[in-house]
């Protein structure tokens, strides 16, 4: 089995997990969920690190650093703002 086929396997399986995970979410959480899922898509930062830290010419370095900056904004900002929203979600009687 080639690496491509193996990768396709896990890609498709992961898609199915993603479909199943979000099947029943109350409307209350649509905004935070969208923002949280968006932060996870910043995982591309891992790719940005590999490209930037490796051997490469000036163009590679520039593209890599730009990718790191973009992805970090997505990751750090995304998780933080989601937390800020969810921090405010309280049940009746919860402590402030």
């Amino acid at each position, binding site marked *: 089995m080639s690496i491509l086929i193996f990768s396709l396997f896990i890609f498709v399986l992961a898609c199915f997990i*993603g479909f199943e995970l979000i099947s029943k979410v*109350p409307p209350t959480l649509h905004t*935070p969920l969208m923002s949280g899922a*968006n932060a996870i*898509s910043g995982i591309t930062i891992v*790719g940005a690190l590999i490209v930037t830290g490796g051997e490469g010419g000036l163009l590679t370095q520039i593209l890599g650093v730009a990718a790191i900056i973009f992805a970090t*904004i*997505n990751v750090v900002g995304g998780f933080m703002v989601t937390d800020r929203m969810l921090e405010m979600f309280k049940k009746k009687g919860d402590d402030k």
Partner: protein
Amino acid sequence: MSQFLPDYIVTYLPDAIQLIYLIATAFFIRGLKLLGSPATARKGNQLAATGMLIGIIVTLFDQQIVSFEWIIAGVLIGSLIGIILAKKVAMTAMPELVAVFNGFGGGASALVAWGELSKFADPSVMGNSSLVTTGLSIFIGSLTLTGSFVAFGKLKGFISGNAITFPGLNFINIASMIGVVVLIGVFTYDPANQTVFWIILSLSLLIGITSVIPIGGADMPVVISLLNSYSGLAASMAGFVLGNNLLIVSGALVGAAGLILTQIMCKAMNRSLFNVVFGSFGGDSSSGQVSGSDGDKTVRETSATDLAIQVAYASKVVIVPGYGLAVAQAQHIIKEVATKLEERGVQVKYGIHPVAGRMPGHMNVLLAEADVPYDQLYDMDQINPEFASTDVVLVIGANDVVNPMAKTSPGSPIYGMPILNVDEAKRTIVFKRSLSFGYAGIDNPLFYTEKNQMFFGDAKKSLQALNEALNDV
């Protein structure tokens, strides 16, 4: 950082990294699952963030990474910008911020693929499958970048929220997309051809703009959710280019989850995804023809004192907030009114329409900010059976979502939209500046029913008056 480790560890390093990636993936899956319930959502988000941190740290031990100066600089700059944006944003501006973050994420994936490509003097050594996924990553990532920023501009008002379109635009978009896919094929066959590469890049950036421009401001939340799904897909494609399982799996998770969420949102807004993408409907100005009946249109007005008595002696009050409440910055004052009523033994509930606010679920966030507990917030399906037993409904800054024409008049533009059945309650009070029409530009027969009273004025001032009047009841 692998160069600092002894040889006997380095031997096992690649496998160790993969195993830790697997752990990070598990964190993401568990995190997304927990994000689906209000009680555990915050923990879920923190779990996902931890997974991300694990993924990033372990990647630094990858043997391909030999220099760190640029990495440190990039991470510092990115974190700083991210922290400032996340801390500063007003909760009302949440849709814009998610759009911006999403754009950066998509752009990053395109840059990763391009960066990897730029390492090779002769790109054909990358192999066909890597070249195809490089092309796809650049395509999806770039269109996510520009599409998200157009969505941001529309939400912010820099670009008209109206559907900007002309005949044939849909055709041009579809043709361009097919064109890019064909060009990716050409690029795979002849990767050294710079011209093809540049056409793919610019066409992808352009498609992001031209496919979001024709969509109206009201549909932007769905568009952002869809673009969110794309940015996951772009990350996954970048994972194929680099042969990185963590990227492939996490990207696929977000891609699929985003698609489902998009569908859920469409359903809540009574729109089909096809309609949103190709329909060119949903502008944000309330022009348009109005065809109302010329029947008896008398409205009954109420005052703060009168209203205070009505709600203070009610046994059940339902509050229906709309975006007008948030615009008037009246969330905190409504919470005060609700608290006072509860102290008197009145049962208070909030009925939230799925599209209340500027994106699905937005009103819940805005009320949470004012410390309204989430178990007092009821979805449309939960609250609708309760109106019949409700004494007073306070409709604040909402209009179309309580318009009975959605049920009764097939000719109306909002016909078929699910609404809150406030007309079943014993009494409705509508807080409104004037008798102007709502977002959809149509009249609301609810205002003229015998059970309804209008409380004219700015929502915040009216509520303040009510709050004070309650002290004297």
